[in-house]
């Protein structure tokens, strides 16, 4: 090779591996927040590469809302078996039963906000001092301003106005007792980068990312899947459509998109010509213009 120039996806990969190693070096009880979505699948692959030939030196933590797609859960268990990683599950259902959280009322109660309670409880129970997340800055405008090493106070809260400056590749993970960090190695990746990386690495992903027939209801422009957690409102009806998911979240707030993309190559074509952001399918972000910032301030992922 005559030119010492790394193409951009390789640069992002090398940067993410550096961040993951820095995360392990700077914290005592690290964990990876794993949702079963494409970003956390990429995170698992990067973590494997960062420590090869050793195993991933931290557990995967899944915050299970109880409203997940069954396909995602099956995928999660397979991935854990394949990688030999340790899995810790925090259950929103259990938080509700224990009286730590209260179910929303209404026709599509979302457990999205409740995840924060379970997440913070799980972090406290296992004394994690830092968690890796797959969040990307291109997803949402509040995320665009979050640091790679993001300090949270003892209530898990993010304070956007009081963030530590982050320069060069020098990450300051020093903290007081009780404080904790969220670390985002995919900060500089875009949705397209993630898909291209999945294709390059030939990574398995949950089947709901590919086009399939499903019964849904159109609620305020969001296509919600039929499940025991959704009640039809007057005038609504279930319809069968050929759809896929662009993000994997709670089935009560993640909308499907109509699509025929059945392979990775077709998904990449679709992403390239998409005119809506992936979070455009998330009912949780439509609640207000600063919905994500407000949830993050309260301790969300």
């Amino acid at each position, binding site marked *: 090779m005559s030119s010492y120039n790394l193409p951009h996806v390789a640069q992002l990969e090398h940067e993410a591996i550096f961040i993951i190693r820095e995360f*392990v070096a700077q914290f005592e009880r690290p964990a990876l927040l794993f949702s079963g979505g494409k970003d956390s699948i990429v995170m698992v692959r990067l973590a494997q590469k960062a420590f090869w030939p050793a195993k991933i030196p931290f557990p995967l933590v899944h915050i299970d809302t109880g409203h997940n797609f069954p396909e995602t859960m099956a995928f999660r268990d397979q991935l854990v078996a394949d990688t030999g990683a340790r899995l810790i599950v925090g259950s929103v259902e259990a938080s509700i039963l224990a009286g730590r959280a209260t179910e929303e009322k209404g026709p599509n109660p979302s457990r999205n906000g409740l995840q924060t309670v379970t997440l913070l409880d799980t972090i406290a129970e296992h004394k994690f001092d830092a968690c890796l997340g797959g969040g990307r800055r291109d997803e949402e405008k509040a995320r665009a301003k979050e640091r790679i090493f993001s300090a949270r106070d003892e209530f898990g809260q993010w304070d956007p106005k009081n963030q530590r400056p982050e320069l060069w590749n020098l990450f300051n993970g020093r903290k007081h007792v009780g404080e904790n960090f969220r670390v985002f190695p995919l900060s500089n990746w875009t949705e397209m980068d993630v898909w291209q990386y999945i294709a390059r690495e030939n990574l398995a992903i949950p089947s709901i990312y590919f086009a399939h027939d499903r019964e849904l209801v159109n609620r305020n422009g969001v296509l919600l899947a039929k499940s025991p957690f959704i009640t039809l409102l007057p005038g609504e009806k279930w319809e069968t459509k050929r759809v896929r998911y662009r993000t994997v979240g709670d089935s009560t707030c993640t909308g499907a998109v109509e699509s025929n993309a059945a392979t990775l190559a077709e998904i990449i074509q679709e992403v390239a010509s998409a005119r809506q952001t992936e979070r455009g399918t998330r009912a949780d972000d439509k609640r207000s213009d600063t919905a994500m910032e407000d949830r993050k301030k309260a301790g969300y992922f």
Partner: protein
Amino acid sequence: MSSTAASAPAHSDQHYLAMDLLRFTTAGSVDDGKSTLIGRLLYDSKAIFEDQLEAIERATEQRGEENLNLALLTDGLRAEREQGITIDVAYRYFATPRRKFIVADTPGHIQYTRNMVTGASTANLAIVLVDARKGVIEQTCRHSFIASLLRIPHLIVAVNKMDLVDWSEARFNEIVAQFSQFASRLEIPDIKFIPLSALHGDNVVDKSTKTPWYQGGALLYTLETTYIGSDHNHIDARFPVQTVIRPNSDAHHDFRGFAGRVAGGVFKPGDEVLVLPSERTTRIKSLHGPEGELREAFSPMSIVMTLADEIDISRGDMIAKANNPPHAGRELDAMLCWFSEKKLQPGGKYLLRHTTRELRCVLKEVRYKVNINTLHKVEGDTEVGMNDIARVHLRAAAPLLCDTYQRNRATGSFILVDEFTNATVAAGMIQPPSG
């Protein structure tokens, strides 16, 4: 010389994976149209989606504003929207068929110099906006000086709001002359000037018909074609060790690898290397990257290195070559940008983070402060507060294995951390020792 950038981003796999990456930073004063310019680049390169556009259309309407407020794309925080200002560095992403871009969008008002320094620290290129009506003002000088101090090799002076001076060539030339006079004091090898209107899109993505007198390319074309191949140091081999990898498994029983990111130069299997601070020498046995075994490794690759001899090596050690070791010394001169509301304490102790090390240091002396508008030394005032830039002398608890910032941005930079609050209080750039 029209740009092809407005066509859909390339996405054929091989082409996409092979595109290169330009990181740039933008700085401007309040109201000089910086957010509008970025909004325009994103909008015209089709990096803005319909739902984002609908959201800002709704917000623009609610505010009773006439023109679509593209600034709302980057100003996402509640307080920013309320006050109509940018508080923090915001990172934005877009791609053309030629290049992928990461934009660090930083606010221009004086109290946020620290954000500008932050955004500049990882950038290959800086765009400084000048309002054509106002010309070169204090803030223009400050932004350019910061770009120079952080050693951004390429600078574009975007002369904006040219529509408000009737696209006057004379006015543009006047600004070029003003800036060039000031720039003779900067250390930026590549400076370009572009007349444009961010609001109307002239010379942003496509070349404008209103500037027949302007021979250069539109802004996006310039961003796409600036040569960045030589921005990393590929001469001085530097490998700061991040962590040690020992699998303790049957399959890799004897494996002991040193993980880290190459900070300079080129390493190859068989190379004789010097381990610091122990000063032991050995040879590289193998190099492993994310895609398998490597025949060579260079900056900024994340790798694992195995060595021929068993040497005690841990996080914070540096692997280099015997004929070209880094500087090792406890006493250093550095330029500091101060970030904290708490003033610099002369004689105070701080934690210093450099490459993968953390050690204590004493700030022995403030040699002088720099007036960041004129670049002159400030006489008779060495009190360093938030957003000040100063040359200091410090003494570390152990020898720092470093290069000057001018020689290598990765091994010449550090941050200072307050031991009690854990806040990052300063960014430092190592200078050659002064007399």
